[in-house]
């Protein structure tokens, strides 16, 4: 059975879908909810919702203190990442390279309803592949550094990944992830970044862009059901849900345009799952059959398996009573995400190497590069 019926899942989902109901929670429910929300990295989001509705003083003091603490931290993170973007644009200044901001920072730039209280520590950027070298050398020249990487990781990033190794300025410690496409180049789903770049929307004159609304929603879906391992990833489904609601209310034909865009770019599968689970778990007001208009849809069997496994992975485990089924579902989805990203002849050695390092972490040190 789908585990949305587990009490702790209902508790968390109800809090997200209907934050006003939180004023009726008793202390025991609060204690569990706070633990679940922290695991799902949603305590800042809940705090922002309650603050907006003026309800932070109507809930138990200990809960309010923890939620306020998370909100303060989330605001600090948002400020740090905003400043990092400012510094990156300064560093790239003379080259006038347009930069597309992705994920958390993009939601913040666009003032989307999922942005307040959202926790994120990284700055994700999309740039043309031909500009990668220029950007990397400009940032390195202005003080950013790569984390120390093993030669294996270095090789993994450069040859098989959709981003270069993260850059970090040692004074600020915010990770800058520079992507040249939106999913692994080795993956089964080939994504051409060009149409995404062409449709990008200008945010300001400093050369900062974000994806168009449809593409932003699609990118969120791709991340969830193509790039990520889904464990404790409810917050990304919540991003999807909030953006669907927001853009649908802003533009009358948004949902139709989204379907057309997904068909045009061949991204039916991830969008199908995102629509399906956002309706199933977050009760998104999305027409029942919207995803049926997609050219590409997962097969019947895959849908059934995902229907059972995805909620078990997306929703956090009960902190005191983890379920074994959820454990299996998570392992399976972990394999699935890797399987989608790499052909088997690459995947098996990769996972074997990661397992080896988990047993002998010291071996990674010996192959570390300067």
């Amino acid at each position, binding site marked *: 059975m789908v585990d949305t019926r587990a009490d702790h899942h209902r508790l968390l989902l109800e809090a997200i879908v209907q934050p006003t109901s939180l004023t009726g929670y*008793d*202390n025991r429910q609060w204690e569990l909810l706070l633990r679940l929300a922290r*695991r799902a990295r949603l305590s800042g989001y809940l705090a922002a919702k309650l603050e907006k509705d003026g309800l932070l003083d109507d809930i138990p003091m200990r809960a309010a*203190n923890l939620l306020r*603490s*998370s909100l*303060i931290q989330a605001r600090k993170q948002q400020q740090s990442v905003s400043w990092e973007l400012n510094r990156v644009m300064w560093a790239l200044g003379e080259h006038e390279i347009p930069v597309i901001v992705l994920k958390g920072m993009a939601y913040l730039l666009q003032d989307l309803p999922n942005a307040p209280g959202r926790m994120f520590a990284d700055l994700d950027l999309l740039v043309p592949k031909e500009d990668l070298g220029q950007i990397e050398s400009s940032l390195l020249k202005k003080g950013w550094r790569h984390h120390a990487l093993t030669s294996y990781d270095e090789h993994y990033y450069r040859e098989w990944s959709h981003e270069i190794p993260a850059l970090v300025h040692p004074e600020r410690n915010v990770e800058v992830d520079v992507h040249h496409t939106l999913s692994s180049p080795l993956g089964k789903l080939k994504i051409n970044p060009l149409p995404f770049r062409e449709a990008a929307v200008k945010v300001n004159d400093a050369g900062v862009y974000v994806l168009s609304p449809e593409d932003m929603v699609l990118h969120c879906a791709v991340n969830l059901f193509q790039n990520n391992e889904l464990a404790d990833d409810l917050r990304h489904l919540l991003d999807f849900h909030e953006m669907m609601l927001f853009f649908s209310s802003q533009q009358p034909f948004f949902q139709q345009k989204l379907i057309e865009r997904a068909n045009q770019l061949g991204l039916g599968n991830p969008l199908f799952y995102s629509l399906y689970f956002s309706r199933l778990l977050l009760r998104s007001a999305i027409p029942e059959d919207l995803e049926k208009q997609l050219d590409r849809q997962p097969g019947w069997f895959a849908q059934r398996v995902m229907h059972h496994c995805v909620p078990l992975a997306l929703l956090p485990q009960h*902190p005191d009573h983890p379920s074994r089924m959820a454990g299996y579902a998570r392992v399976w989805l972990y394999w699935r995400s890797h399987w989608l990203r790499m052909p088997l002849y690459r995947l098996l050695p990769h996972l074997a190497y990661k397992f080896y390092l988990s*047993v002998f972490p010291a071996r990674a040190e010996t192959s570390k590069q300067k």
Partner: protein
Amino acid sequence: MRVGQLSRDTFRTLLTGSGLRVKAGPFNLSIQTRLPHLINQLHQMYAHYSLVNDTEIVEFHVRVISRRSIRRPFARLIQFEVDSRSPFPPVPAEQALATLEWGINLAIAMRINHLLLFHSAAVERNGHVLLLPAWPGSGKTTLCTALIHRDYRLFSDEFGLMDPQSGEFLPLPRLMPLKNQSIGVIRDHFPEAILGPEIPGTLKGTVAHVRPPQESSERADETAKPRWIVFPKWSVGAAVRLEPLPRSEAFLLLASNAFNYEVLGETAFGAVTSLVRNCECRKLVYSDFDSALKALDELTDG
């Protein structure tokens, strides 16, 4: 009800079962462990801690579990977990108590932002708080231990918890880890101090914990306003000196050493500004306890 009033069996049942729920100043903790030696140590060291009613919200759920390592199959290792996440690698089982205490500190420092967290010892005398901020060589835990055995009330040896709105400080009386030579110094000077086992080989050398006095634990809800900030420095053979410290310097030392000054931003700036404006700021150089205690007594008498 206090931990010391529980029978050893009930105490063990709680720790090995649903969790021992205890109060630590403004926070509530739930602790789980099945390690027999840790259960015994906690029964003695936490004796004055109050139990938390089952219907109250607990903020921190921590656990110390035994671990096996593929690399070291015969070593007895333990791991600290907060909400099932392990912030530290496994350590030898003897270090369980020290790891638990550090783990709780870390969890507080990582999660709490509604209060400003100074890295400082804090004690109360005559209704006001004396802050002893940490700086290299300060020996704040040692000096703090000395003070609380001379009738100062313990707030904390690690966290100065300040409510940035009201300016009040909040007590967080917990075990105080003495390190290396300090252990012998305290044993010699204050034979009445109750110390836990000596734990050798930790990251900070040998550690032994001091149990907070009963009165400090019982009055853990009584907040107080700060009045004195003293930056201590232990210096071999030095005659005791308690000198004024410019407020600007006190500000920088406090702000740069706080756990969440940057996270709180403007709120923290305002809070530290009013703190140093309203307090007497001093620098204390000392080599022996008696003269240092005398100087601090004189400062806090008025």
